[in-house]
């Protein structure tokens, strides 16, 4: 069952994927870079804005679909992934991109992520990871560093940060990558690879919050990033190595010289997507004669 996305014949310029709405993000927000990378990737991938759905939850980053020229579903807090699942079940020919935040995906929405991942829905889930909650004015998120001072944790975060890369791999995501909002070229490449990937693609974008987060800043990331594919020659089919590399950036809390890995950690296309399996079932049980479907169904209930 090969499901093809609707695509344009000719490329649209990236600006055509932006709406006329002014964004409400703070100046210097890393998420602006994500918009730029997305519009470039959509253009390169020749996606049709009228056959493209961007699904989000609630939070600063989840406003993204509003700034875009594509179908958008700005849903409830934490519910972007299941809303996207609904969209995938409805129309497998329409690509679906989830654009959400680290809190939305991995705190309130945590229950949904692993289930969509293990079922291998063909969608791209982008986490715009600023390692805290911004829209509610500075609280810790599941990816916040230990010791991070948020408005509810003035004494410092007691928790260990959650390793979303390893979690995504363990959940069964078939494409797991990390990129950085300060590097639009790398972001665009990764998002394109994620769109082209058949299956559940998770992209964590390190996206600094200039207003509240004084630890995970553009300055902090500068000089620390290491491209695991190009610089370290990491082969994304090596799952074990991918999990080891994913542990690396957490050393940064303890080791001032630690590097932050970006690139494709893991990728496999050997697993069929959920949509392919559903379409195969529909094909298998397709009635021989559509005219008599109802007679057949009702015959089960006749006396």
């Amino acid at each position: 069952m090969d499901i093809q996305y609707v695509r344009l014949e000719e490329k649209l310029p990236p600006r055509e994927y932006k709406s006329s709405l002014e964004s409400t993000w703070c100046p210097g927000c890393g998420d602006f870079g994500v918009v730029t990378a997305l519009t470039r990737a959509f253009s390169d991938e020749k996606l049709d804005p009228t056959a493209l759905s961007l699904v989000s939850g609630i939070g600063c980053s989840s406003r993204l679909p509003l700034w875009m020229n594509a179908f958008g579903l700005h849903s409830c807090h934490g519910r972007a992934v299941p809303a996207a699942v609904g969209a995938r079940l409805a129309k497998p020919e329409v690509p679906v991109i989830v654009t959400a935040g680290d809190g939305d995906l991995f705190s309130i929405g945590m229950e949904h992520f692993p289930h969509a991942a293990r079922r291998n829905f063909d969608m791209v889930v982008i986490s715009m990871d600023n390692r805290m909650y911004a829209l509610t004015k500075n609280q810790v998120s599941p990816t916040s560093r230990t010791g991070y001072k948020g408005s509810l944790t003035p004494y410092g975060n007691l928790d260990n940060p959650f390793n979303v890369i390893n979690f995504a791999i363990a959940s069964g995501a078939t494409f797991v990558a990390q990129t950085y909002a300060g590097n639009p070229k790398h972001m665009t490449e990764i998002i394109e690879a994620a769109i082209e990937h058949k299956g559940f693609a998770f992209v964590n974008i390190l996206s600094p919050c200039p207003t509240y987060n004084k630890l995970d800043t553009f300055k902090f990331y500068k000089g620390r990033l290491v491209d695991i594919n190009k610089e370290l020659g990491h082969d994304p089919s090596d799952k074990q190595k991918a999990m080891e590399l994913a542990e690396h950036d957490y050393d940064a809390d303890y080791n001032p010289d630690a590097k932050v890995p970006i690139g494709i950690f893991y990728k496999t296309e050997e697993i069929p997507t959920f949509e392919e399996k559903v379409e195969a079932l529909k094909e298998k049980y397709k009635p021989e004669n559509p005219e008599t479907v109802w007679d057949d169904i009702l015959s089960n209930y006749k006396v």
Partner: protein
Amino acid sequence: MASFDLTVKYAGEGGEGVISSGDFTMKAAAKMGYEVVTFKSFPAEIKGGYALSQVRMSDEKILSQGDGFDILVAFNGEAYEVNKPLLREGTVLIWDGPEGGDFEPEFEELEKKGVIMYAVPMSQLAKKEVGAYITKNVIAMAATFELIGMPIELLKEEIVAKFSKKGQEVIDLNFKAIEVAQKYVKENIKKVDPYKVPGPLPKKDVIIVEGNEAIALGALAAGVKVYAAYPITPATTVGNYLAPHILKTGGYVYQAEDEISSMAIVIGASFSGVKAMTATSGPGISLMQELIGLASMTEIPAVIVDVQRGGPSTGMPTKHDQADLFAAALGGHGDDQRVVLAPTNVEENFYLTVEAFNLSERYQLPVLLLTDASLSLRAEAIPTPDINKIKENLIERPIVRKGEVSPEELENLFRYKITDTGISPFLAPGESPKPYTATGLEHGENSYPRTTPKERTEMMDKRFRKIKNIEDENPHLVEWDLGDLQEGEKADITIITWGLTASIAKEAIQRLRNKGIKVAALYPKLIYPLPAKAVEKAASMSDIVLVPEANYMGHLAKFIRMFSSVPAEKIVQYNIYRGEPFIPKEIEEKVEEILGKKVQA
């Protein structure tokens, strides 16, 4: 009046075959052309605990499960103890005796009462004569068939249908049990009771379905493409019944990780342009409230079935209750638009599911179908639906498709266009020429977030305008029952009720009318927004408005106070909350009590 009306009740322990005994008997009766209604109840555990399956059969339309039963087939001592108080003069008790069972009835006491007792050693015959204890229920059934004169061939047909996959050996074993039972009854029992099923009636074009089956079929007929749900009693079987058929119609049943995701999936699918539905029970409705609000704000059609059970909290998962009306209509935050429909019988479970889709498409909002545990399990033989006619009358969403609009029109095409009806064009990915973002934030016509007082007010007015005239636009969703009352004639009492209670009340009302009491009755199927005009008109026909409901607080009664101009002092609540539906006699007696008191005063 029906010339034949017989109720057989099988009672015993869950897992002993009590439920299938009722099902087989019901099917045999339906095959003979009789009307049937079943009533089942069992505990929330997989095995064990008291279970009952009751079959009422008649040559006329059956409205309720009845006041009681004519024949009790008691599988064990508990079944006997529970039902002993209900045994009356002329009732037949078929019990597991004289030997081999776990109890012995109080012969003298029952004889004095006039109860007719037939001993059928079900356990012993199954063990010793058939050699398989598991056939106990088949012996009980076959003995009952023999006693009431139902063709044993019909029982054999059901056994073949049910066990053909398990092989000839299993069928032979069950046939042996039938023979043993027949032989026992012929040789040992002298029939003294009057209960006898007359010969078969002319064959009717009917299907036998349970409440939840009817919902599943209704959803299919309406064209559901995505069904997402999380297992919860007593709603789970809606999906179970849908799953094998939906692939044939190009849809899919998805078991979601919870109720919240189920509702989000419904919204995501419907946003994408296809019909989507979920089914749940009270606890699931609580979890879905935020997303039901999103569907309302984003004007995305969605059908949510709530098969009510006893609450709050986990409550009584397998027991009857009508206490989710407040949650269904008013649950959630903010002022949202939604529609609540309540079917009163199995046939309406089917047609109102179709209606739920039609209303959700027409008004672009969530529609809740409020049914209940007893109705979910109640089986009825209903006239075979005309699917072509249903399909012709389906209301389709106003999706604006590519190529349908000129470039100038495209400029002014807005998803949330403010219109006189409040209903706006629908845009769907892959189909429409102009994208938009559906957002739960307050927004302007073009869907961009807006919070100015003017725009907020306009948009609230637009959304509420959609359902402002819903009563006038859907008069078929209110059922009037005025009996012989003439225009302008005063009734002794008005009864307004909903859900399964309405079908039970109908039987009580028939009996009251036979006694000369004038009853005006109204059964709203659209219960929110409350059809206030109809309610007010019905209430104006008498001095008393009785609202029987199977809940503590009186949800519909309170709605009548809130949303209509019916004087509060006229409204009399009658509430039961024991986990079982009303029986007709209770409503009949309540009316007599009220009218009696009124005369005295």
